[in-house]
């Protein structure tokens, strides 16, 4: 069998992710390594590219949450193969601290956003769900984060987002940290009112907003 070109390897990785095929992604990752494709390129030009295309289909309402989750499963499986072979770590676009605000345990939306951030080149620290506002602030300070991304599906917990902004102010570290908010009951107006820097309606948009915020 003829060797694949580098471009063909990247295409196969990207397609396997887009097709939600975990086994095929793992196989493609091994093949790329065997044929000396740079693991960094395989991740960026292959796996991440597949997720970016999946994100586009999600925005176009051809993919939905199940499809996006399956794509990300394939992507992470491929990442597990490639990561140990990375010689160089790519330049991160920035560090994001993400979580679902205290009182809320709905985390599918947050997980989607985390995935899109990770594939979009951000270092992501995921605090999980039901996270007290102070923990976002403490973690952001310790990790020198660029962005805090807050999610909630419930109106009862929305106010916790405003609390995070206020705590950042009080800690005098507001200037260096951008705050993004999203989730079912959140509107751009609400984001503005609590002093957040960004709002995104879904996971695909969230990563675009984040890029603008750190540009």
């Amino acid at each position, binding site marked *: 069998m003829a060797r694949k070109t580098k471009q063909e390897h990247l295409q196969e990785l990207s397609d396997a992710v887009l097709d*939600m095929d975990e086994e095929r992604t793992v196989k493609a990752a091994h093949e790329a390594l065997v044929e000396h494709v740079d693991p960094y390129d395989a991740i960026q030009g292959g796996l991440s590219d597949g997720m970016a295309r999946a994100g586009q289909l999600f925005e176009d*309402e*051809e*993919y*939905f*949450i*199940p*499809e996006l*989750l*399956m794509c990300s*499963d394939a992507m992470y499986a491929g990442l597990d193969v490639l990561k140990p072979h990375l010689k160089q770590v790519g330049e991160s676009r920035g560090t994001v601290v993400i979580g679902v605000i205290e*009182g*809320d*345990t*709905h*985390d*599918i939306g947050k*997980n989607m956003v985390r995935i899109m951030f990770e594939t979009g080149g951000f270092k992501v620290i995921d605090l999980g769900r039901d996270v007290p506002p102070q923990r976002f602030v403490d973690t952001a300070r310790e990790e020198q984060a660029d962005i805090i991304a807050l999610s909630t599906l*419930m*109106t*009862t917990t*929305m106010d916790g987002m405003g609390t995070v902004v206020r705590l950042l102010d009080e800690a005098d570290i507001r200037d260096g940290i951008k705050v993004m908010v999203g989730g*079912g*009951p*959140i*509107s751009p*107006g*609400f984001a503005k009112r609590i002093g957040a820097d960004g709002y995104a309606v879904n996971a695909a948009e969230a990563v675009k907003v984040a890029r603008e915020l750190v540009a």
Partner: protein
Amino acid sequence: MTIQKNASTAAMSPLERFAAYNKGEAIDRLPCVPIIGNTAARVIGVKVSQLRGNGRLIADAQIAAYRRFNYDVIRVFTDLYTLAEAMGAGVHYPEDETAYLENPAISSIDDIERLRPADPLKDGNLPHHLEAMQRVVKALGKEVPVTGALTCPFTTASFLIGAENLVRLSIKNPETVHLLCRVALESAIRYAGAIIDAGCTPSLTDPMSSSTVISPRLFKEFSLPYLKTLIEFIHQHGKSVTLHICGKTEKVWEAMADAGADCISIDNDASLSGARESVGHRLRIMGNVKPSEVMLQGTPADVRRAVFDSVAQAWDSPKGYIIASGCSLPTETPFANIQAMMDAATEIGWPVAPENLI
């Protein structure tokens, strides 16, 4: 047909209003339903957690809320999890906020066989909700439709095994999802029967079936067949069915109609005018004033404006239109905003003069 305003329509009860509206006769105003759940606790000044396991208090709260605002449908509802809880899911009850799912009933598909359909007269908090429904019907059943919230199979399935698990399985292992939906359907049918026995109408809610979560294709595979069976069962008992799905729904409106819904309740991510155009000839439409942005956070003037906008979009929908919030109201929705919704409905009156809505 010209419809004349006359004195006899001055103070219609909700049942009279619906009866006349359904026949195309004169009414005093469009039906109006701010969908009140735990806000009812605020009306009688109790903590949300006090409603747990207390059918009498749930009833007192719902009766008081209705008497205060005089809306057109009472819906006995505290949270989405009652049915899943009765099947073994863990629900957390914060002291004064709406309950949320703490842990699904099972964590692995190996345990599916352990799941049993709920017994509405015994399991979880279902008996208390049924008691609440009976009490509300006894107090108000002659003047206002009383409904009991019923979570639909696909959504209950997500609470049985966890939402993320379920959506993965919907692609990886469809047969497993069907097993979960079947047992959730059996519970839903039993509970629907008990709700009807209590003198109420089941009010269907299926947020996980939203196109914000799953594709229309998966809706047709995992939501539609079970909704159809459930709605058929309710129809056989002579009740009409309102089906609420949160978030985006445009691409499944036709399927919601195919499922047999008589009325769909749509959220603010869906367009009322779009719904009127595409399925208004098949079913009644209710919605979709923004529960969070307008009802919770807006002013009474914002609410009035939003009601006028909604009515302008859908008042002439062929099978009728009900002014409503897009989803259950947040617990802390100001009373002034609920009142503003009712006042706007009265101000618009009947017949609707579209030139006054702009």
